[in-house]
């Protein structure tokens, strides 16, 4: 049992380990551990009592009940545990497995936090393992490619400067057919809201930008989007362990908003991006909090509804269930607002998944796992049988729609629903708001 028995061939990992020597491994492992980690790692590694309670926490271990190498502590045991025990004297094959495990078998969802009496933060340990992998140059191909894209064009999808504004202008044109006078105001200094998205939106999911513009227009929001890089709030570098690039991206994002003198940043329905600007990237840069307030779309829609700025022409037919994304629920406590918004939009019950809210199971896509691409897809889907069971239980009670306010959750649940032929639809809140709201005429 263990990662060595389930290795998956990946161009990036193979290329990375081919360049390693034992000396380099030892040097870098120790450079990261002694140079970049401190009391947290020391305390965690020393006081983890190996009680195994966390086995109940992880969707991977719950989906592989007979394989203890999928438990949170089991994952640490096979990675950081070995590095600390051997002082980094491990071979390249070990690094291959360690990287595969850290990048593709832990979503950094931190559900295990609810299971560890001592408060060991497995997500932090696995992030540190990833940091070491990054420093060793051993990262899966597809996520590394997004990291490259981030560094070259400040977004994760190789979207060039022109393609960004061009997409916005194209969406603006389209939307004006439906909403005469609608604007996607670019570079509007002093706007209330700076709206930022992740690069897949201009690249593949332009309807989300369309919908956001429609909602902003209908609600009469004073908003803007930047015409320069910084608009992409996503951050795969945070997940590859390239913290220097993570910081660079976050700096660009926040300074883009600061330059426009906006009051706050509202971001689309993405979880990991929220995490990167809410409490990760900002800290690497020395900011205790985000220097410009950031608000996830769930909270923003909730606020618009509270203020009566969204009126519905109809309600969305329920029942529905809601997926609680780890980064905005366990990471920000938006579970109640998510339900209030859902209740406002939906005619019918919210059939809850069990467990739910901050105890909900991860989608198995987040934490950069889905971004590691096709080689790891089967393992990822197999690693979340529990989510399939959760969803199937709601489907049995008549749920056809899963409200999923997170891009990664969308990707993850889509694959699970498809694999298990659950026949459920996934919706962003903005899909439903757009579909149901009163659309202002000219």
């Amino acid at each position, binding site marked *: 049992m263990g990662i060595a028995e389930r290795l998956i061939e990946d*161009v*990036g990992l193979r*290329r990375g380990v081919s360049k390693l020597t034992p000396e380099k491994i030892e040097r870098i492992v120790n450079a990261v551990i002694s*140079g*970049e980690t401190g009391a947290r790692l020391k305390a965690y590694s020393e006081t983890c009592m190996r009680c195994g309670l966390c086995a109940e926490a992880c969707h991977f271990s719950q989906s592989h009940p007979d394989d203890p190498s999928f438990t949170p502590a089991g994952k640490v045991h096979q990675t950081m545990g070995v590095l600390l025990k051997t002082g980094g004297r491990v071979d390249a094959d070990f690094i291959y497995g360690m990287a595969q495990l850290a990048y593709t078998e832990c979503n950094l969802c931190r559900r295990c936090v609810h299971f560890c009496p001592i408060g060991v933060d497995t997500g932090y340990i696995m992030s540190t393992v990833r940091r070491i992998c*990054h*420093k060793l*140059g051993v990262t899966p*191909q*597809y996520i*590394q*490619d997004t990291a*490259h894209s981030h*560094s*070259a*064009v400040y977004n994760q999808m190789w979207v*060039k*400067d*022109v393609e960004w*504004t*061009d997409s916005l*202008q194209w969406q603006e044109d389209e939307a004006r057919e439906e909403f*005469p*006078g609608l*604007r996607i*105001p*670019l*570079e*509007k*200094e*002093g706007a209330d809201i700076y709206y930022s998205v992740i690069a897949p939106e201009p690249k593949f999911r332009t309807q989300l930008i369309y919908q956001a513009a429609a909602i902003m227009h209908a609600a009469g929001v004073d908003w803007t989007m930047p*015409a*320069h*890089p910084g608009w992409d709030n996503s951050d795969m570098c945070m997940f590859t362990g*390239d913290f*220097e690039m993570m*910081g*660079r991206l976050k*700096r660009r994002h926040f300074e883009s908003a*600061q330059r426009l*003198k906006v*009051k*706050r940043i509202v971001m689309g329905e993405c979880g990991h991006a929220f995490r990167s600007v809410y409490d990760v990237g900002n*800290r690497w*840069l*020395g*900011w*205790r*909090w985000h*220097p*410009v*307030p950031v608000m996830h779309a769930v909270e923003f829609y909730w606020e618009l509804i509270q203020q009566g700025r969204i009126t519905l022409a109809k309600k969305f037919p329920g029942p529905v269930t809601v997926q609680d994304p780890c980064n905005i629920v366990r990471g920000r406590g938006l579970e109640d607002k998510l339900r209030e918004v859902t209740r406002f939009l939906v005619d019918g019950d919210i059939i809850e998944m069990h467990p739910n809210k901050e105890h909900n199971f991860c989608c198995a896509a987040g934490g950069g796992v889905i971004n590691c691409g096709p080689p790891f897809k089967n393992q990822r889907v197999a690693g979340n049988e529990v989510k399939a069971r959760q969803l199937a239980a709601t489907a049995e009670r008549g749920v056809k729609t899963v409200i999923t306010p997170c891009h990664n959750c969308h990707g993850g649940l889509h694959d699970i629903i498809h694999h298990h032929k659950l026949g459920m639809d996934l919706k962003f809140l903005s899909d439903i708001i757009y579909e149901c709201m009163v659309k202002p005429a000219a």
Partner: protein
Amino acid sequence: MHPPALWDWESGQRVILASMERPEGVAWVEEFHASPDGERVAALASLEEGGFTALVNGEQWENPFDKAWYPRFSPDGRFTAVVQQDGMWTLAVDGEPWEESFDYLWGTQFSAGGEVIAACVQSGGEYGLCIDGAPWETLYENANQCVLSADGKSAAAVVQLESLKPADLEAFQKGVFGVAVNGQSWDARFMNCWTPAFDAQGQHVAAQVRLSLYDYSIAVDGKLWGENYACVWEPRFNPATGKVAAPVRVKGLWGMAQDGQIIWEPRFMQCWHQQFSPDGKSMAAIVAPEFGAFTVAVNGKPWGARFPVVTDLVVGRDGASDGACVAALGCVDNADWQVMVDGGIWPGTWDMAWTPVVSPAGGHVAVKVAKGDRQTRVVDGRVFQREFDKVFEPAFSPDGRKLLIRGIDKGTALRIVADVGQA
């Protein structure tokens, strides 16, 4: 009109545009901009019959365009916008489009005096810069982070020198990026290049470069410093000595290096936005001596004030000592903005504040500020008595005695010249 010495510095108030109402035939008017001399206000407008135009002091441009965006006044007072006609993009300057048009054009930039206008262009899938309507001879797979020298005679951009196949890690890590100056790329290629910057004379270019996924340095005219760092931020040339300074990260902390030598010991949680004084004798930067606590350091020595966030650092001349006048903004959670000048904090907090302006001869600082829906400015710590719906960047007369206030209030665009002492 340029230079500012030629502007009307007669004290008093003039109405530039009495009514900012939407004219007949206009579907909507976008955000207003004011010319630096305050003589003109302009906005882009959508026409009811389709197409876009600009309203400059209420007058429409002669010919409308299919689309128009990115409105900017040049420092010498010309109103520009990126426009599209028949599917092709170009720049319109006071309503006149450049002769050449492109598949796409964006990111208008001006020389310090405004005589030269540049923009980024894409033509046939290739990218480069276009200066006063003339594109670079060589265009690239990609070009971004464009920058124009102060005199407008040179332009630089980060360029991609080779195509990348999808997800080709090997090729990317070998390095396909460089810096092109006036269309001519450096010989050296890097994994990444960022923020090219010109020296005062527009002769040299320095940029951040990434040599591997982990090694960062500064390249000047394509030549590396020789020292590598865990990370670097944007380089700046000393206007007097031509030396290059850049923040560098060493063992998890930030300091400042100059031409590859550490000049500020790495002891900050953050250090960035360094600027030299006009005489090159002082350098200031935004630093965080502790986690979450920012301030300004001048020549490596931090001020006593601490804010969770510090922005908008400017370094100007100090009139009295002939040294440097350093101003910056501090805020808490993007609210409660305060103005710091030379280590002191002005009284009063604001919902928002804009980059401080130091008078050219030194001695005075003006800051645009907002409270609620009203905007005004603070000069040398005193609040200007009058509030506006909107004000634009402040400007001092060359002798520093007068202050130009460009504002919009109750639907009227105003130009006010006030004595600095009474402002």
